[in-house]
């Protein structure tokens, strides 16, 4: 207590706690909002009303859902591995919330600043696989185990393109720090063209690949086979009920927020305004506007696309996503060495176009439609 100031360790702990409280408050509210908005939007797309009983326009639906989840009976299977079964949802939610920490939400608004912020995001994200396995194995149920296997197979396959599409941005910026990546994208040509990476050919390609991989990592339609109801009940969540199930659900949505937040930090200029004269609007407003647009696309895709098969997903990852991701790295290098101007723009576009056309001709099998043949179910 020198000079009437609190000791340093106390200040440190207090500031961490404030950061954590703010993160949890904002994103749990967003989770509640999104869960009702998603059902409303899906309802609109499928020509029906969404939830509209609780509160005005059904906006208090999450409160009702929360109470229902809390008072539901928590069933643990008799043959389950009690500790592992309990730890899986807790750890999965913890990992999802940790990844939120490194994203810059506005000017000087990064909760946890470290040198390798991007690496931190993926390191913590990659731990999720082990936790999904714990959920599947701890439940001692064949459906759970199969669901976990599927989830891990697709997560490992798409982690590769996900990380490789981040590489071009890291190469061009020369830093793994999300704040620096946002700073580099903060300039404008002619006062209205922002220097976002999505406006370069390699950036646009990488952003699309990143977005698709993000869909898979957060187990969203059209890639939600780990919980394909018609085949394996609810995948690794089969044996979970009540609040533990809600925790899985929350972790999934928070993972979705985190991956969208990282995507817009890397490619869409982070918290910068799209035109220079709109910079007076607070930076965090821009961040959340961009985040809501991305989340709307997630919901839109869910309302539009049917579920893909697991072998289609994995084939797509290894045969198309991975080569295209490598092409992005090469195209970014070409862009850098041809002067980062219009010439570099055209050269990198050429590189991507050539690889894209070659890949799609090679992968196009031009199969004729014929009666389906079964390999295992004869």
């Amino acid at each position, binding site marked *: 207590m020198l000079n009437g100031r609190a000791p340093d360790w106390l200040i440190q702990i207090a500031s961490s706690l404030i950061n954590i409280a703010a993160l949890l408050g904002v994103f749990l509210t967003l989770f509640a909002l999104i869960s009702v908005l998603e059902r409303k939007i899906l309802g609109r797309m499928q020509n029906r009303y969404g939830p509209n009983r609780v509160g005005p326009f059904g906006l208090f639906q999450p409160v009702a859902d929360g109470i229902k989840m809390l008072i539901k009976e928590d069933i643990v299977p008799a043959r389950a591995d009690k500790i*592992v079964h309990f730890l899986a949802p807790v750890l999965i939610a913890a990992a999802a919330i940790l990844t939120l920490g490194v994203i810059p939400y506005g000017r000087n608004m990064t909760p946890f600043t470290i040198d390798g912020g991007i690496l931190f995001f993926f390191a913590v994200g*990659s731990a999720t*696989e*082990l936790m999904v396995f714990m959920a599947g194995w701890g439940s001692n149920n064949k459906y759970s185990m199969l669901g976990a296997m599927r989830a891990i197979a697709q997560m490992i396959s798409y982690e590769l393109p996900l990380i490789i599409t981040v590489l071009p941005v890291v190469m061009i910026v020369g830093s793994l720090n999300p704040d620096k990546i946002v700073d580099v994208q903060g300039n404008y040509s002619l006062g209205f063209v922002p220097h976002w990476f999505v406006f370069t050919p390699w950036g646009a390609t990488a952003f699309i690949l990143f977005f698709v991989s993000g869909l898979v990592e957060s187990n969203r339609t059209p890639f939600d086979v780990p919980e394909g109801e018609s085949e394996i009940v609810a995948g690794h969540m089969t044996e979970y009920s009540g609040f533990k199930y809600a925790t899985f659900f929350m972790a999934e949505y928070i993972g979705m927020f985190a991956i969208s937040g990282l995507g817009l930090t890397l490619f869409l200029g982070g918290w910068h305004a799209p035109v220079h004269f709109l910079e007076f609007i607070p930076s965090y407003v821009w961040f959340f506007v961009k985040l809501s647009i991305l989340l709307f696309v997630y919901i839109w895709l869910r309302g539009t696309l049917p579920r893909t098969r697991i072998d289609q997903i994995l084939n797509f990852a290894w045969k198309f996503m991975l080569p295209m991701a490598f092409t992005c790295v090469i195209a970014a290098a070409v862009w850098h060495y041809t002067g980062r101007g219009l010439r570099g723009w055209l050269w990198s576009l050429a590189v991507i176009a050539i690889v894209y056309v070659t890949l799609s001709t090679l992968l196009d099998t031009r199969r004729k439609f014929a009666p389906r043949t079964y390999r295992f179910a004869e």
Partner: protein
Amino acid sequence: MSSVAFVIIAVLTLSAALAAATLQKLMHAALSFAVMFVGISAFFFLFGAEFVGLVQIFVYIGAVAVLIVFTILLTRYDVGKVRGFSWGGVVVAIAVFGGLVWAISKTKLVSVAPSQVEPLTVQRIGELLMTNYVWPLQCVGVLLTAALIGALILVMEEKS
């Protein structure tokens, strides 16, 4: 402050390691092994080697631990069974321990004052990898590509 943290992390890591060696169920042992990996990466963070700590989590939790649990799952039918005691394991453990002690005792201990050590930033690692260690890096790259192709050939469907 940091010595308190050191003791806490050390106790956690060692008890996780002990649990991995003594737990009755194989799968529990594998999972506590993963906890030990987290402890080791916490050490790296404590000593300012952020990058190494992150890579430790990335590789050992994200890949090696998943590999271990899958190996157990796919090679044994009695995953849930209680394992017995084996003298062979004791011999191997003593041999490894002896080898490590021998190697450590032969090493000349270098004591450097903490202020002289530059923080190991990502930038420095990148520069060193691209200048002094570029050939080892390339060799590792070739090796890993060969491993990847080998894995693909192993699982390739044979057309008859």
